[in-house]
């Protein structure tokens, strides 16, 4: 044990995923076994940077008693801040101008002043970048990946994915039943800007007719032919699942030539940057319209979006959360800061942050899941 590390901060950066309390619980219980204190930082780093915003304080001492009584549901005791980036904090200056300030130095000083030796951050792929920068500036940090898209490349499984998948499957099955009853084709859009894991895995589990993912440009004529064939055999209904980042092979993603994108700064076209073009719903609506045109059958679009985070936490995610929490403490015990905890079955590994950033975990075109989908007769739209 490194006796220097005794007070650990823990926070959550990036969007919400269900069941975050399990990760917090894992960290607190494992730290307590070593006699360490755990201090929760509210809303990303806001609890440290803006304590004045919190009447009861921006920090929360997390004891075993407290975490054992935490909700086992989807809640998060610490709160998340999707835009936690101490390198770009928006502030109004003395001239009443809004500007972005680099408060990373102030943050590091505050961490020190609070006696926090190291920080465990539960982060999305975007927040991973921020933590990488803070680590390069000297902050001792261990990251835990979370994502409902399962897009963090260094780990097989990001925290929250399994719960989102499970809830998405439930909703797809309901949508399928409704489509069956009403004799329509339902096109359901699920999150997945760059990766189709959620779309593919939920679609095959819910026995969808087709699934369209960002990795495989689609041709709707193939999907329409399949649906038509079904209709001719007395089944004039269907379920098509589309990831929000899926693109037509005929009309590839508009790219910078699109007048919208052309007019924007590059950061605006970045899905995880400060400015975001929200494309939620676009894929479902365009696929739904085109399928209606091609099949002559009635179609409708359903956009799940953030709803996929609304379910309860699965047993797998509870295990994973506790395991990730404990592993993050172990990384600090072994004095290995600057890493992300990664689940690479059968092991939990520590991946240096520099190797974890700048990678997207995309679906292999001929991988296990695409093969299973094909075997089950689920069209991949190509």
């Amino acid at each position, binding site marked *: 044990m490194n006796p220097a590390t005794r007070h650990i901060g823990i926070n959550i950066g990036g*969007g*919400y995923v269900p069941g975050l309390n399990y990760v917090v619980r894992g960290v607190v219980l494992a730290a307590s076994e070593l006699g360490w204190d755990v201090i929760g930082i509210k809303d990303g780093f806001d609890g440290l940077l803006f304590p004045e915003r919190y009447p009861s304080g921006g920090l929360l001492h997390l004891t075993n008693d407290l975490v054992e009584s935490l909700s086992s549901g989807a809640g998060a005791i610490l709160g998340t801040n*999707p*835009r936690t*980036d101490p390198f770009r904090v*928006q502030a*109004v200056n003395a*001239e*009443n*101008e*809004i*500007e*972005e300030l680099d408060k990373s130095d102030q943050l590091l000083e505050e961490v020190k002043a609070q006696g926090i030796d190291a920080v465990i951050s539960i982060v999305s792929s*975007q927040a991973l*970048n*921020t933590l*990488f*920068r803070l680590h390069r500036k000297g902050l001792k940090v261990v990251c835990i990946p979370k994502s409902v898209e399962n897009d963090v490349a260094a780990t097989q499984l990001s925290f929250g994915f399994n719960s989102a998948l499970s809830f998405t499957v439930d909703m797809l099955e309901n949508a399928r039943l409704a489509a069956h009853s009403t004799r329509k084709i339902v096109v359901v859009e699920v999150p997945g800007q760059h990766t189709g894991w959620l779309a593919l895995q939920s679609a095959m589990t819910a026995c969808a007719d087709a699934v369209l993912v960002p*990795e495989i440009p689609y041709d709707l004529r193939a999907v329409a032919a399949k649906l038509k064939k079904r209709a001719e055999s007395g089944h004039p209904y269907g379920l098509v699942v589309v990831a929000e980042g899926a693109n037509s092979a005929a009309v590839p993603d508009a*790219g*910078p*030539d*699109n*007048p*919208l994108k052309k*007019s*924007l*700064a*590059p*950061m*605006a076209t*970045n899905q*995880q*940057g*400060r*400015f*975001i*073009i*929200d*494309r*939620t*719903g*676009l894929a479902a609506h365009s696929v739904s319209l085109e399928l209606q045109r091609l099949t002559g059958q009635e179609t409708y679009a359903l956009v799940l979006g*953030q709803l996929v985070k609304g379910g309860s936490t699965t047993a797998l995610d509870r295990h994973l959360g506790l395991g990730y929490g404990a592993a993050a403490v172990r990384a600090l015990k072994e004095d290995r800061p600057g890493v992300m905890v990664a689940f690479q079955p059968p092991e939990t590994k520590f991946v240096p942050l*520099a190797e974890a*950033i*700048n*990678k*997207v975990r*995309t679906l292999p075109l001929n991988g296990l899941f695409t093969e299973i989908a094909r075997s089950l007769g689920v069209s991949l739209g190509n």
Partner: protein
Amino acid sequence: MQQNPKSGIVLNIQHFCTNDGPGIRTNVFLKGCSLRCKWCSNPESIHPKPELAYDLNKCIGEKECGLCLKECPESALFVLEPDAKVRVNWDLCTNCAKCVPVCPPNALYLFGKEMSVEEVLEEVGRDETFYRESGGGITLSGGECLLQADFSAALLEAAHIRGFNTAIETAGNVPWRFMEKVLPHVDTMLHDHKQIDPAKHKKWVGVDNKRILENFKKAYENFPNTTFIARTPLIPGVNDDEEHVRAVLAFIRPHGNVVDYQLLPYHRFGESKYGFLGQVYEMEDFRSPTPESVAYLQAIIDESFSRTGGKG
């Protein structure tokens, strides 16, 4: 703000514009803005310094090139598998621009460049014939052109010497000394009343409008020979109500040199549904106002300016 009157950071120079002052005009967009309107459709104009831009379609890929990857000191450039082309990790990029000169197809380039008064005037001057014919000239826009007050003043003064009509487009959120410095060289000041209520202004734009209104009032009073045109980017749910339009009219009508109040219906780009988000899940979805609501509000303005028949 440290200012250099000789040069400024210019985002873009647009020729043959007809909506931003009299006649045919050349719009010079300066970089840097002191507001953060939630509907901003030109975020590349916000930051005061040149910023990296990237055109994925131009990238020839890591196998053929990959030169930029070696240059980036911030690990902000990487290759994505499916197409083996470079991506920019905008969270890590610090706009150091070391990658720009090594990129053969110019896929990596900069938004905004430093230009001298002479350089801008040379480009603007190409349209001189059109100004003569139409009574047009140069319009400084942004961003917020008054943030580069020394440069703006020098540029407009030089434009006046060349005989060009001058106009600026401003949101007014600058220290009065900036506005006071530039206005002597301005023929027409187009100025935004984005939202007249201070609390709503703060909600949608980021700061309240107390100083903005003070500045406008001082400008109307201290520069009686300047033509002022008030404008509102009309955004449903933000400022497209009758109460707002009447409040703006009440503010500007006592001043004879405010000659018009124009509504600029907000346009969404194409069919795309989009929102600019300060935060990921706090989505704002701004729609274009309907022609009926624009016509209704326009009629109120026409009545106030004793015009009949409206403008369209």
